[in-house]
């Protein structure tokens, strides 16, 4: 098991390297000398930029070096100094913005992932066991709708309904009185009461996909011989379904974290804009629109890296719960 974990971690490194290269490509993409535009930006804000400052910026970001060296410099500063560069818009280090926004992105993505699985697994089992029942048809229909509704549209519709018929604004993650307050139990509770909207909106498509897969895998498993063996032992049907068939069917579903997680993080980025959440999404969009490239590139790098790490964790979890994989990989 340990050797498997170590090997998986090693395989992840080239992936992270490629992702960082792509992210740096994003930073480097906009045409033009962006030091100049940065200086223009600073000056427009009324700051005086001295020759030394320009030189120090050039040195810090290796701006007069060729592309590969600029990349290496960027990575090195991230690893060595946790320096992700400077955001022009905010005129502060990107690392600070990341520290502010990223926890919410992670919290929302993780709770959505848990919600997605917590909803999809039982519904998938139900739909398979009661195949072609009314409930099955109902969930299948909801599933197809969930896959077809763009999540930002779902967010808009929910906001519209709540605003129009209940007079509540469901955007954001905090009520106004807590927005700038220090963390307290009341603030946490307030966040939880806002969290369900983004979770449902972001999770719907993934849940719909997982329900369909779970249903299909479960139907497959239910027709297998070991289920009949379990019945022949005299087990109750519910135990046959849950302890035997569902337990096996869950494994491929867990392996789908690698497919669900990018979807959730993707969805979070766009839904956050609509729902005005204090996460990375709105900042990323703003950074892209204003060509605040260090901010945008770093966000993309971190979001992708998070996805890759999440997928790795799910692989390890899968190896832990599935003896077949565990032993295959050790052999």
């Amino acid at each position, binding site marked *: 098991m340990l050797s498997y974990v170590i090997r998986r971690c090693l395989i992840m490194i080239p992936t992270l390297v490629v992702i960082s290269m792509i992210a740096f490509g994003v930073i480097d993409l906009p045409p033009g000398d962006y030091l100049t535009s940065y200086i223009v930006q600073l000056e427009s804000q009324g700051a005086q930029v001295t020759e030394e400052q320009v030189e120090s910026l050039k040195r810090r970001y290796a701006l007069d070096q060729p592309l590969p060296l600029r990349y290496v410099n960027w990575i090195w500063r991230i690893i060595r100094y946790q320096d992700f560069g400077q955001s022009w818009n905010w005129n502060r280090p990107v690392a600070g913005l990341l520290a502010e926004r990223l926890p919410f992105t992670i919290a929302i993505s993780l709770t959505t992932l848990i919600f997605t699985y917590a909803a999809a697994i039982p519904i998938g089992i139900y739909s398979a066991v009661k195949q072609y029942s009314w409930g099955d048809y109902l969930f299948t229909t909801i599933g197809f709708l969930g896959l077809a509704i763009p999540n930002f549209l779902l967010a808009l519709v929910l906001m519209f309904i709540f605003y129009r018929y209940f007079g509540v604004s469901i955007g954001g993650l905090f009520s106004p009185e807590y927005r700038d307050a220090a963390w307290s139990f009341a603030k946490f509770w307030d966040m939880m009461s806002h969290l369900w909207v983004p979770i449902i909106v972001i999770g719907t498509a993934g849940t719909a996909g997982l329900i369909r897969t779970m249903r299909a895998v479960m139907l497959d498993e239910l027709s*297998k*011989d*070991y289920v*009949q*063996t*379990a*019945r*022949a*032992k*005299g*087990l*109750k*049907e519910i135990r046959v379904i849950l302890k*035997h068939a569902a*337990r*096996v069917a869950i*494994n491929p579903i867990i392996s789908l974290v690698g497919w669900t997680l990018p979807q959730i993080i993707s969805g979070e980025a766009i839904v956050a804009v609509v729902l005005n959440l204090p996460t990375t999404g709105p900042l990323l969009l703003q950074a892209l629109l204003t060509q605040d490239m260090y901010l945008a590139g770093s966000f993309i790098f971190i979001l992708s890296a998070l996805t890759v790490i999440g997928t790795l964790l799910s692989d390890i979890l899968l190896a832990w*719960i*599935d*003896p*077949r994989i565990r*032993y295959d990989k050790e052999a």
Partner: protein
Amino acid sequence: MANKDLLLSLEDLKTHFFSENGLVKAVDGVTFDIERGESVGVVGESGCGKSVTSLSIMQLIRRPRGDIVGGKILFNPEDGSSIDITKLSPGGRQMRSIRGNQISMIFQEPMTSLNPVYTIGNQIMEAVMLHQRSTKKQAKERAVEMLTKVGIPAPLQRVDEYPHQFSGGMRQRAMIAMALSCDPEFLIADEPTTALDVTIEAQILRLMKDIQQDFGVSIMIITHDLGVIAEMAQRVNVMYTGKIVEQAVTDDIYHNAKHPYTQGLLQSIPTIGRKQRLTPIRGSVPNLLTLPSNVCYFAPRCPHAMEICSKQEPPLYEIDEGHTCKCWLYEGSKEVSA
């Protein structure tokens, strides 16, 4: 016919399936008895209703796709009671206390009939703990004991291994261990060796014979292989399209087969030293959906087919004591009421 030694008797059992394309009479009026300590074979080509018969005894026919629509399955366990299994609810407490406890079953595919994510020991213990209310520790001891009995080497270690670490033959041994772990009175073996290599097959058959003696369990062995029957069973029921066409003791089946279908099955077995060509039965098992009623279903494939065969269904004739045959060729013999 009431007999103290009678363990199980099927009386005119009918199990039908309701498919999209119509009614399938998979088992259509099957009657036979199994005595205590006896091994009975059920033989026939695939699709003749052998497996459905065994699943009916276990009440494992999946509704609403299929159901037992008629007949009785009388089960007389040692405690002296007599239960008609067809009257029990398939998911009910009484049926579940019979399954795996008094009647257990082993299946054809050892590769897939064990759950891949639980250890062998865990799967044996599950049945023991369910039926014998034993502690986890006792159940595990029982599992090790059973693995030892079925000849699995290093059982203390292998009890904690997963099915994929076992070979096919070993898995079937483990299945047998599981089936016998609660000391059942009756064991149904549905093609237990079909998926195995010939050498392994011999070992498993040997094991089953030993076990029958050790445990005093009655066995119903289902197979399409008359060789397996010769090895295992004292009496044989030959099935064709959901009906029993011949019943006899094993010797009679081999040396004095009466039904053309049984004769056909025997002629298609290759035997070393025999000079004759193999004569397979021509044609194949008819589609159960399109069968007409009240005829002999074997007639289209039968070398002795007569005019009456496709006009009226033959009754069951008693050829000899304990030897019956459902064929017009024996018209004039004593008819047995089904």
